């Protein structure tokens, strides 16, 4: 697939279809492939594809508004692109999507902790293990055979749902007290494109700076809520988090609820309106307090 990606990148750079291709190259630390920005056809040899392309490259697209960009996209990345288009952040014709059917990404940190250098299914990220859209939902070219969806499984969310509210609060406070407010989650997330994030607002200050538990809670819950019906479950936030907080449990809870309550999944169709941007008299209301 690496070869195919290079071939397409070279062609669309040479024929001027795009001014830039965003893909992955080999990183400088073990088991890390990292974003790379190719502007010259002769540099396409840098591009690679492997099980460590964990970032969601769609997060960079907001920097190139109105410019023609090629992008290497896994299933989840393509969903982010679809959602950016649906939410009016991106024009379909500005982006050339090199779709990569994805068999899952491996948790490098867990592997390194266990001293493993060879990927195996045990180290797949939870959202990859249960991925419903491994094949890109939108692409200009697909570089491989379609990959079948995996078994839908929200048992990670289930574990938290089963707790009593006290236990859950205790879990949340314990886990999220480790947050350092670096906002790697926000910056890694393609859907966090607000020009001014609520957490940065200081006139008035909605969330105080520092690490008081109430501010850490507010930030993390606020972030998750803002992604309800928008999160494409790519896991970029959790992979970026230096403190390895279980951010995806919150996001996946939201995704699961939105699917169950409204039958909606973000980023799978260009024709559907965002779930929170529409109203249907048939919508359930029983969750409103």
């Amino acid at each position, binding site marked *: 697939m690496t070869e195919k990606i290079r071939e397409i990148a070279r062609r669309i750079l040479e024929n001027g279809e795009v001014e830039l291709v965003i893909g992955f190259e080999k*990183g400088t630390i073990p088991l890390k492939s990292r974003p790379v920005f190719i502007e010259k056809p002769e540099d396409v040899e840098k591009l690679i594809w492997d099980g460590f392309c964990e970032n969601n490259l769609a997060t960079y697209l907001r920097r190139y508004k109105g410019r023609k960009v090629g992008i290497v996209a896994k299933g989840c990345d393509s969903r982010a692109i679809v959602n950016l288009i649906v939410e009016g952040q991106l024009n379909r014709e500005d982006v050339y999507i090199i779709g990569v059917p994805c068999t899952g990404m491996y948790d490098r940190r867990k592997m390194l902790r266990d001293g493993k250098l060879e990927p195996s299914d045990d180290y797949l990220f939870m959202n990859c293990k249960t991925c419903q859209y491994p094949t890109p939902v939108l692409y200009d070219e697909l570089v491989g055979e379609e990959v079948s969806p995996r078994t839908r499984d929200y048992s990670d969310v289930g574990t938290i749902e089963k707790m009593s509210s006290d236990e859950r609060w205790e879990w949340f406070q314990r886990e999220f007290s480790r947050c350092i407010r670096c906002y790697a989650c926000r910056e890694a997330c393609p859907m966090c494109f607000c020009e001014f994030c609520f957490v940065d607002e200081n006139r008035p200050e909605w969330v105080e700076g520092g690490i008081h538990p109430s501010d850490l809670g507010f930030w993390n819950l606020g972030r998750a809520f803002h992604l309800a019906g928008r999160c494409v479950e790519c896991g970029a936030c959790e992979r970026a988090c230096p403190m390895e907080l279980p951010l995806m449990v919150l996001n996946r809870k939201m995704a699961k609820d939105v699917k169950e309550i409204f039958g909606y999944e973000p980023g799978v169709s260009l024709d559907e309106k965002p779930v929170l941007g529409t109203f249907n008299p048939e919508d359930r209301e029983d969750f409103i307090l």
Partner: protein
Amino acid sequence: MKRIEKNKFYEKLNDLIGEYRVFAPFGDRYRYIEDVSEIRFDGLLTKMSPKAHFLPQEEELFRWDERENIKVKDVNDKYIVFGMRPCEVRALSLLDLVFNTEKFPDPYYINRRKNTIIISIACNEPLETCFCTSFGYGPFTKGDADLMLVDMGDYFLGEGDENILDLFGFTDSEEDYKELKEKAESKIKRIEIQGIPEKLEQIRETDFFKKITQRCITCGTCTFLCPTCYCFDIQDRNRLNGGKRVRVWDSCMFKIYTQETSGHNPRYEEYRRVRQRIMHKFAYYPSLYNQYGCVGCGRCVTYCPVNFDIREVIREAGGYNG
């Protein structure tokens, strides 16, 4: 050289908890411990550097009540920071240059610094990402530590303040750590920093910084984990019956950091922020203090979500002819 059995050392350290507040490695960060059994080394370096003791992420400066009586926060406790690595000790000497100046002495930082005994541990097994020896010191440099320990398995060799060595009950030893030191130093890959400050100034306005910024997502991971980054924000916490003024960590990577009241932001674009971070450490620090603002601990390399590698940036800057 002096030595002490590890269990004897930890016993004594435990006895000192109470008289001193002890800040020690606890997995991914340091924390104030109640008992030495809480100490947990997860690898050579904690993710969060121990700067959090000297510059807490959230620190009260003073508070006021409804009658506007102001009470300034004292820092009078005595502290021991145990387990710091030579790079982290060196980082303190760089922070001193900023917070302990004649013109603007920072009493909070200075008091903590003055009231803290630093016990460091030399690095027998440096990491792949360590590049400390690039900066004229190394994995066995005591620096400003009051006591540096060398891990010899069942015992520590100690070097430093006689009073502290006596306090712990170190005894004389014929051994030295020369061999360990040489072995450790030989493992570390240096980066070439000769001429970098001048070169960075030269290429400041070229496309270099735009190029290297493409990858950076401008989160604050590097700056928050960095032992030398010290940017902060001052905030007032107003409540009905008074309030307090606090200092909280901030980051030059954040857009809001340089946002002015008028709405103008001199570092709106990402590359201006990345340029600031690199220039501050490798050009401004050298020109202001004749020291690099980086200690080569490698945290920013290891934990960057997109593998923005400062070693590579410095190398590319050195060879940039654009």
